[in-house]
């Protein structure tokens, strides 16, 4: 009896989790006339790619996609690189600056973006860097760096220093030992940090909406908002096609790296 209840609950939870995603995909391939039909069809009766074609022809969606790829890609690279350097220092050296960085990273991780967006936007606008993707990349890197420092620091601390020391004894410089010995060992941690960073930059809306006012400079999230407002009576097929394209890379990364992601995020939230 208990088992039966548990299975019913589990099924309910799974449906609630998966149904919205399934609905995005089902709708994206339906023609507009079918979306408006009552009662609604579950799977598309006449599957079509028209929504995707329209998305790229009547809107700047291609530009949004390109901007988002550039911003998220470069942000991920920079965050992982600087995070790796900083976290290694914090976990191996005990100078005032490194210790300060280690402690401050935990605090900075908690800073809500909404509390810093106004001053940051003022700087960006006064320096005439609005619509500049590079400015957004620098800001994203700064915002996402504390998490990277936090996760990678605990990762580096977990690695044994023996091999590193052996390499230095054998004539490696410390930097050489770091790059040749520590970094390869830390690759799983670097990958999960990178995926988290990519997902966060890919999804971000607040800074992108404030700092990229011109329509063709937008990233995906503010781009889709623009599309939502332009279509008036919402053209759900078009918007769901956009949602499919935004969520697809996330899904692929998630499926590939699920295990290490869960481990890394759990660690990031709670482990030292």
């Amino acid at each position, binding site marked *: 009896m208990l088992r039966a209840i*548990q299975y019913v609950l*589990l099924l309910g*939870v*799974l449906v*609630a*989790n998966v149904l*919205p*995603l399934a*609905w*995005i995909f089902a709708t994206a391939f339906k023609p507009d006339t079918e979306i408006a039909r009552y009662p*609604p069809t579950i799977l598309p009766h006449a599957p079509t790619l028209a929504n995707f074609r329209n998305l790229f022809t009547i809107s700047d969606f291609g530009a949004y996609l390109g901007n988002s790829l550039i911003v998220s890609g470069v942000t991920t690279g920079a965050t992982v690189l*600087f995070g790796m*350097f*900083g976290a290694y*220092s914090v976990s191996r*050296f005990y100078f005032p*600056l490194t210790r300060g*960085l280690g402690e401050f*990273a*935990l605090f*900075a991780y*908690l*800073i*809500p*973006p*909404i*509390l*810093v*967006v*106004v*001053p*940051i*936007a*003022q700087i960006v*606008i006064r320096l005439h860097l609005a619509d500049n993707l590079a400015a957004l990349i*620098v800001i994203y*890197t*700064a915002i996402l*760096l504390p998490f990277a420092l936090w996760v990678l620091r605990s990762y580096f601390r977990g690695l044994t*220093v023996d091999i590193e020391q052996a390499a*230095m*004894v054998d004539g490696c*410089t*410390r*930097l050489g030992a770091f790059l040749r010995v520590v970094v390869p060992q830390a690759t799983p941690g670097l990958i999960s940090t990178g995926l988290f960073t990519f*997902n966060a930059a890919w*999804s*971000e*809306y*607040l800074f992108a909406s404030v700092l990229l006012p011109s329509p063709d400079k937008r990233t995906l*999230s503010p781009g889709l*908002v623009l599309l939502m407002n332009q279509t008036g009576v*919402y053209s*759900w097929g078009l918007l*769901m096609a956009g*949602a499919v394209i935004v969520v697809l890379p996330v899904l692929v990364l998630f499926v590939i790296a699920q295990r290490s992601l*869960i481990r890394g995020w*759990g660690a990031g*939230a*709670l482990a030292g």
Partner: protein
Amino acid sequence: MIRSGTAVRPPISRGLSDRRLALLLTLPAAILLLTFAVYPFAAAAADSLFRVDFLSGARTFLGLENYLLVLSDPEIRAAFGRSFVWTVTNVVIQATTGVGIALLLNAQLFGQTLARGLVLFPYVVPAIVTALVFQFMFNDVTGLVNYLLVDTHVVRAPISFLADPKTVLWTLIAVNCWKYTPFIVIVVLARLQVVPVELYDAAAIDGAGAWASFCQVTLPWIMPVLLVACLLRTIWTAYEFDLPYLLAFGGPLGASTTVPIEIRTLAFGRQEIGAASALAACAAILLAAGAYFYLRAYRRSEERVE
């Protein structure tokens, strides 16, 4: 080649000294954090005392006038009220359903591995995608939810979930819980997987039933991590902008305008940088209190683990 036995530190002549290297490796991260975390707080604190021209940055000193405005404006007070309801309701629902789902996923059911993977999925879906699909599903004309509710005679007429000031905040809370409950599930599930079995055996010998062993063994075991997870979620939920804004844009009639949305409207809609900064400063004080409790709970849970 110089061999120095067990020495950790390489001789100075080989490569950079540790001090230089530490400086070099730390500097980029330190500069970024100083510029984008420390400076903005200082700038916001200063701006809150001035009337600031949005484009030129020209300032007129006002003293505490912005704070008085923020604390007396009925709209902003209402936003604080909504933020309170939003935060408390979200965290309570996420904590209880999160623990429930984690227990369910730890109950050795068939298909557990697949279920664990699928349950975490909403957490990684971008806010814009979540917002779009729920706007569509909660739509009063073409929405799936209304179709199901009307079809099963739960309601007689479709509900305008996101367009009615009375229902909008609750709808946003439901969607937010859909997206963020997995965070609690991840954290609690990880903890449940390492419960020492002896604890349950001991409880069973003492004659504890399922409910008693939950209260005496499971709950105390997950409590430290649950507490920290809840505090994190409290902070992130209280200052969350993207998802609630993208679902309802603060409307209709301001009924979903929480403090973060009010800050953005003040700064970029009405271009009142000073007032927006004062509101952010008030919110930051509340955050500092939250962070204090977070750090304390974090240290305590760490001590307990050791």
